[in-house]
């Protein structure tokens, strides 16, 4: 495996956490991983993005330019990173906030209405977990259990109360991606 | 009749002869510090920091572990020492260029932190070691090699009153200005230097004693004239007294 991913959106959408959880899940399954956030002026206007690499080999560049997977949580992110997807790669986008259609025909674009789903679940905060479930499913990289483990690892036992909701969100994301 | 007092070399001074010019009061202040330290502490309880300036070789004179600091940085160096060796008495000995010009930030912030150190600040209103240039404490009208027509506020700025300024801070436990131009004042200076070191031993925090001092060589005066200059010209600008005591 050598999965190069970019997660992008605006601050508060949990974009950096999504990337970290994928990296954690990779680490917990014995892979080599890196997580590199954009910082400083790249984050101007409240946008956030990070590069994640999950690989069987030691990671080369931690900054992803040719992404197997781009996750776009808002419109500016899709505009900025659609071009970074390798031909045949995957663009997963938040269709709750992005009404444009991706322009490229040589990639696989999957809309996921994460805001609607998370609202149905009763917590808009878990939109990123819905997306994470979809990402895991579409890439086939991780199971729901592995993501929940990663979440536990990252957040610690103090947040155990939130696990059920997060698990539901991940499951819904996976189900949507399948359908 | 009481036995005559016999003076010897304090244990906190080495055998090295001072290099200071005739009539310079650095030697008096060195001796006062050494006497106070000897009366209160063992040699291994004290670590000193020498400045850049005429007292740069103070590490040859004070008979305890010593540091030589970069110009103005003695309060920062002393902070590092005190944090690593909190049980030691840590002092710096600094002139006006060192403390009030290039090292003003280090001085003010060590004071504001209430860093538990003692600073002996020698104010003679001139850069001695480099040959008599204007200091931040040079008096208005005073001629130096870089204010050859006499210092003016318009051309050279105003003298800085370090003790008054530091006394506005919450950190310090003792800020006082003393002089060593006559016996009475020398004795008083020793009293305040002793108090400053005692404060540190008692954990009271930052103390600074400003000592009005002479520089006959660069002032172009005889030793006697220099002492008169302190009492007649410097004290009116820099009044003696305790400016802050907690």
């Amino acid at each position, binding site marked *: 495996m050598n999965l190069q991913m970019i997660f992008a959106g605006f601050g508060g959408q949990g974009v950096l956490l999504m990337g970290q959880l994928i990296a954690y899940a990779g680490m917990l399954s014995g892979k080599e991983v*890196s997580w590199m*956030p954009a*910082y400083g002026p790249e984050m101007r206007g409240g946008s956030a993005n990070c590069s994640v690499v999950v690989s069987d080999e030691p990671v080369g560049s931690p900054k992803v330019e040719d992404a197997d997977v781009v996750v776009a949580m808002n419109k500016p992110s899709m505009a900025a990173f659609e071009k970074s997807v390798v031909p045949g790669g995957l663009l997963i986008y938040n269709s709750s906030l992005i009404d444009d259609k991706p322009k490229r025909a040589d990639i696989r674009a999957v809309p996921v209405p994460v805001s609607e789903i998370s609202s149905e679940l009763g917590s808009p905060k878990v939109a990123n977990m819905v997306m994470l479930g979809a990402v895991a499913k579409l890439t086939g990289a991780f199971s729901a259990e592995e993501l929940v483990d990663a979440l536990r690892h990252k957040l610690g036992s103090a947040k155990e109360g939130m696990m059920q909701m997060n698990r539901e969100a991940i499951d819904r994301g996976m189900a949507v991606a399948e359908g | 009749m009481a036995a005559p007092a016999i003076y010897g070399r304090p244990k906190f001074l080495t055998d090295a002869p001072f290099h200071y010019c005739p009539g310079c009061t650095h030697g008096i202040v060195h001796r006062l510090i050494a006497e106070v330290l000897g009366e209160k502490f063992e040699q291994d309880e004290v670590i000193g920091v020498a400045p850049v300036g005429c007292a740069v070789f103070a*590490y040859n004179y004070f008979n*305890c572990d010593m540091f030589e600091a970069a110009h103005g940085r003695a309060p*920062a160096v002393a902070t590092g020492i005190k944090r*690593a060796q909190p049980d030691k008495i840590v002092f710096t000995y600094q002139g006006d260029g060192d403390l009030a010009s290039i090292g003003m930030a280090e001085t003010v912030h060590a004071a504001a932190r209430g860093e538990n150190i003692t600073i002996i600040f020698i104010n003679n209103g001139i850069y001695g070691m480099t040959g008599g240039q204007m200091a931040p404490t040079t008096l208005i009208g005073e001629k130096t090699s870089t204010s050859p027509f006499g210092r003016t506020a318009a051309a050279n700025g105003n003298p800085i009153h370090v003790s008054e300024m530091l006394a506005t801070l919450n950190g310090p436990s003792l800020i006082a200005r003393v002089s060593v131009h006559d016996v009475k004042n020398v004795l008083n200076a020793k009293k305040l230097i002793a108090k400053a070191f005692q404060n540190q031993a008692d954990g009271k925090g930052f103390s600074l004693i400003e000592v009005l001092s002479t520089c006959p060589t660069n002032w172009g005066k005889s030793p006697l004239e220099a002492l008169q200059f302190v009492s007649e010209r410097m004290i009116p600008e820099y009044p003696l007294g305790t400016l802050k005591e907690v």
Partner: protein
Amino acid sequence: MNRQMMKGNEAIAEAAVQAGCRFFFGYPITPQNEIPEYMSRRLVEVGGQFVQAESEVAAINMVYGAAGTGARSMTSSSSPGISLKQEGISYIAGAELPCVIVNIVRGGPGLGSIQPAQSDYYQATRGGGHGDYRMPVYAPASVQEAVELTQRAFDVADKYRTPVMILGDGIIGQMMEPVTMPEYTAPAFDRSWAATGWKEGCGRERAVINSLYIQPDVLEKHVNKLARKYAAISENETMVEELYMDDAEYAVVAYGTTARIALTAVRRAREDGVKVGLIRPVTVWPFPEKAIEDAAGRVKGMLAVEMSLGQMIDDVRLAARDRCPVRFYGRTGGIVPGVREIHAAIHAMKEEL
């Protein structure tokens, strides 16, 4: 030991604490703020001291004070702040004190940018401050390596009584990677030189922590002594990694983050059939001259890749001794050279040479 995801800056700080560093003096500047932030809470737990200094100048002088007592001490900053620390670094080298200085490099000159850069190479490897001195400089390429090199830096600092620099960049500082904290035990070092309180008959000389030698002949003797120390460091402490160099016809030379980006490019070029390898200086001072010189005798050309307009390339050329041509590719200003660009530069070198 557990593998933990750690941000580079925090991993460096934790590695220092586990190496026995108990005194940290710093000042905020991006992109290294996680180091002082981490130290401000972590050192409290282990009975150490953290001071947010009034300036980088003050911070390095606080290090001078603490290091002079023999305590493991550290400061960190980023490029403009490291410029301010040069005064203290020179004094620390002159006074022969051990300490570790972390530079998480950002773009320059001047205020520059806050993005990753390698444009402080000259400053780091040529001493940076005034006077005849050298300073070991480690350039980690991963968070794990940053941890290991930070701990090694403390040992080398103590062994040779010298300041040691960790030269990272915004990527090393900001990225997260899995880290396994090594089981670290500090070797025993002679610290009888340290100023910890002296009295007559205590069994050692009175300590004077000092870099002033007013007599030229005495200073010359002192600087010659330092030079012998630097020669020993060059002899014993040079570190370099060579990858795909066995059959290489071309070599990319890069350090730190750039080296791992270059490694991806090298692998791609290998897939295209180009016999190219990577030489990665781990210490940039001492520079791995021998490895470069040996390789220069075997390859058709070398490509120095840097996040600057070319600073390390001077060392590559000096070491290569004209045995092969040396080409350059770099980006600057806080722009990270991409895999595609380096890959293209490798092909361009192959076409030309």
